[in-house]
């Protein structure tokens, strides 16, 4: 099981200093902070819920669907990362149904990309690898796509290997929301969706890239890595993102998926106003 960032104290923000919301989590009555997400609560209490696209410090995306949980009285499966606790909520973080769905989702990711751990820079420090272990994916029952996307090694410091990309958009969000450069985006749709730099240029030619490396730090797999990294040598640092966000005023918690719909200039001035 992978080590997850567990904030020692509740992050600063609008929430009150004391947990006051009574919630049932896996049959146990616990106290949550008002406005806390189910995922934050579970992590604080050491209850494992698998995640992939979620990254502390940037907005909620809700794309990987791994953190689905069961909530009493809800006929859909809400996402732990996007659902705030409410009084008397009865949450189950695991069940045979949830385990099945999570295992299938992880298997789908393996079928979609080209994930050969033995030949991967991220082996041993890969969240997808950890997820396979956590959810018990020891084989993939689906047709392997064997994609052959181009590797972009045009950047002097970093490499992008799209065959290992799980389209979680952590790099997109980090670059946009923390670095403010918006180098990354997703082009095309569905099965053709792929990560592109700039205006679908070679990464090394994108003038807006500051070479800060936060995208590389945030990447959960071996899709983004430093030049010259050999198998198993990649050391990601996803906690860096939450650290930076907190250092800049700890306001990221107020952001959610709607933040992306705010006008760009408003988001920009907000960034400037809170950067130390």
């Amino acid at each position: 099981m992978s080590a997850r960032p567990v904030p020692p104290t509740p992050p600063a923000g609008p929430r009150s200093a004391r947990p006051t919301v009574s919630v049932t989590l896996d049959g146990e009555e616990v106290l949550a902070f008002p406005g806390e997400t189910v995922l934050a609560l579970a992590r604080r209490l050491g209850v494992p819920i698998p995640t992939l696209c979620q990254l502390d410090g940037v907005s909620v995306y809700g794309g990987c669907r791994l953190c689905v949980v069961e909530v009493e009285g809800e006929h859909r499966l809400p996402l732990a990362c996007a659902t705030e606790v409410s009084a008397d909520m009865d949450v189950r973080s695991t069940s045979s149904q949830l385990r099945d769905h999570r295992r299938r989702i992880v298997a789908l990711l393996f079928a979609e990309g080209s994930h050969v751990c033995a030949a991967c820079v991220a082996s041993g420090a890969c969240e997808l690898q950890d997820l396979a272990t956590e959810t018990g994916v020891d084989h993939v029952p689906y047709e392997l796509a064997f994609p052959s996307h181009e590797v972009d090694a045009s950047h002097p410091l970093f490499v992008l290997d799209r065959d290992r990309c799980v389209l979680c958009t952590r790099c997109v969000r980090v670059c946009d929301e923390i670095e403010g450069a918006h180098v990354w985006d997703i082009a095309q749709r569905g099965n053709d969706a792929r990560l592109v730099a700039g205006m679908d240029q070679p990464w090394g030619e994108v003038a807006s890239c500051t070479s800060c490396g936060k995208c590389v730090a945030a990447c959960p797999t071996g899709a983004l890595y430093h030049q010259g990294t050999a198998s198993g040598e990649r050391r990601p640092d996803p906690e860096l993102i939450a650290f930076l966000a907190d250092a800049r005023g700890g306001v990221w918690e107020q952001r959610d998926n709607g933040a992306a719909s705010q006008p760009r200039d408003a988001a920009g001035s907000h960034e400037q106003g809170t950067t130390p």
Partner: protein
Amino acid sequence: MGKLIDLDAMRDAELADRSRRTHRALVCSSTGCLSAGAAGVRAALEEEIEAADRAETLQVVPTGCPGLCSRGPLVQVEPRAGPATLYAEVDPDGARSIARDHLLGDGTGDQVAADVEVVPADLPFFAHQTKVVLANAGRIDPDRLEDYVAAGGYRALYDTLTTMTPEQALTAVERSGLRGRGGAGYPTGRKWRLLAEAPGDHKVVVANGDEGDPGAFMDRTIMDSDPHRVLEGLVIAAYATGAERGYIYVRAEYPLAIERLERAIRAAKRSRLLGKGVLGTDLSFDLQIRVGAGAFVCGEETALMASIEGRRGLPQLRPPYPTERGLWGEPTMINNVETLANIPAILGNGPEWFAAMGTADSPGTKVFALAGSLVTTGLIEVPMGISLRTIVEDMADGIAGGRRFKAAQTGGPSGGCIPERFLDTPVDYEHLRALGSMMGSGGLVVIDDTVNMPEFARFYMAFCRDESCGKCVPCRVGTVQLHALLDRICNGQGRRRDLQHLESLCRTVQVTSLCGLGQSAPNPVVSTLEHFRDEYEALLVEEPVPSAVVTGDAS
């Protein structure tokens, strides 16, 4: 600011003009008939009338769709008094015959053109219909505001603005029991109230005309046959909910609808039916068209809003719901085009009139696009609760080519198939859902016994795979894998375990996908498996005997 419109004067002038004509030839100029050559038919009619110098007393009117699309181009000849005649499959030569025999006669005998096919007035296709939304379709020139006003248009808006408070208008919609015609059937009045009660000074209403289901063309026809009706519905919605601007989101594949809506909006602005001071009241409502860029998922309301804002059409997590935080953060309400087209009739005739149609839980009418292996295809508007059998066997005149009915797919790629034994099911939201299908936006594709159901399911899965936005894993990868599994089964290479994977993956994609596209993508597979499982079983091949695998070709 335009000139204030006088509805009565405009109507009287229009009717006076009509009374000077001995006949009016209504030429369907909706998308279907235009593609079948209606423009040439209209030109031929006008030429003949011009040559006979009768343009003063005869009028050729390009109209919207009367519905009988498989028999187009359609020309309806209306004498000043007496019954109209509907000609089908008219070509330019036929148009000349109609002009010479029927229109240009001495005006006494009403000679029906002999060498053109005439549709009997009591055709079951028309007899079972109740036209509310399509009341003007095929009756008026969609490009002329005067035609809409002469048919009673904007009267409901005028009465609402002058005699009702916003609250009263909202209550009327609530009491009508109208439910969203986009597919899910959410009560429209409840949605309106959510917007009305949402805090905010810049609320937005949106008409969703991004109809994308294969074989569905209800909204297209409403927009290109009677665009002002959608506008009127939107202005009433704005009045009742306090919205100050609106958008009509239309897919780019509907150029004719876009053109006619644009013209309608310009005409409405000139006549102060839109803009500042609507009809001389304090209401201000600005309306714009936004054109989609070819993505099915943009019919999903959060993806639609992203598209209107100019971003990638990706669905967003809900909550927050659009009425809490929508376009540019403002409370926003999205209604289907057909839903809005019901509004003028509800306000004009009262909620009780509307609630009396259809069934108790699903009042009103529903427009269906009939497609597939039917003798007669086209567009119908029927009261809710009518049986599928009436639609298929009476109205559409059964299955073409003497084949047998096999199933009807409602709800497009999000719906399910309904086999013959459920043909007597009343068509409404609850009954279709109970059958594992859904109302959907109103596409009704009928297939005959030559269709292989796994292949049928594969077609819809290919559609969903190609239209998945790629945001969430179950839909992006799941539809690819479901399609691959169906492919293997259809090609006679599927094993029993493939069928098991197909079923388990369907479940995962249904319950874990982010938006309705993914959640409903497996429905065609699930429903064909439920009703036609034997066809899947028949395609399976035996598992190889385990001992045979060990010999080295187990790659």
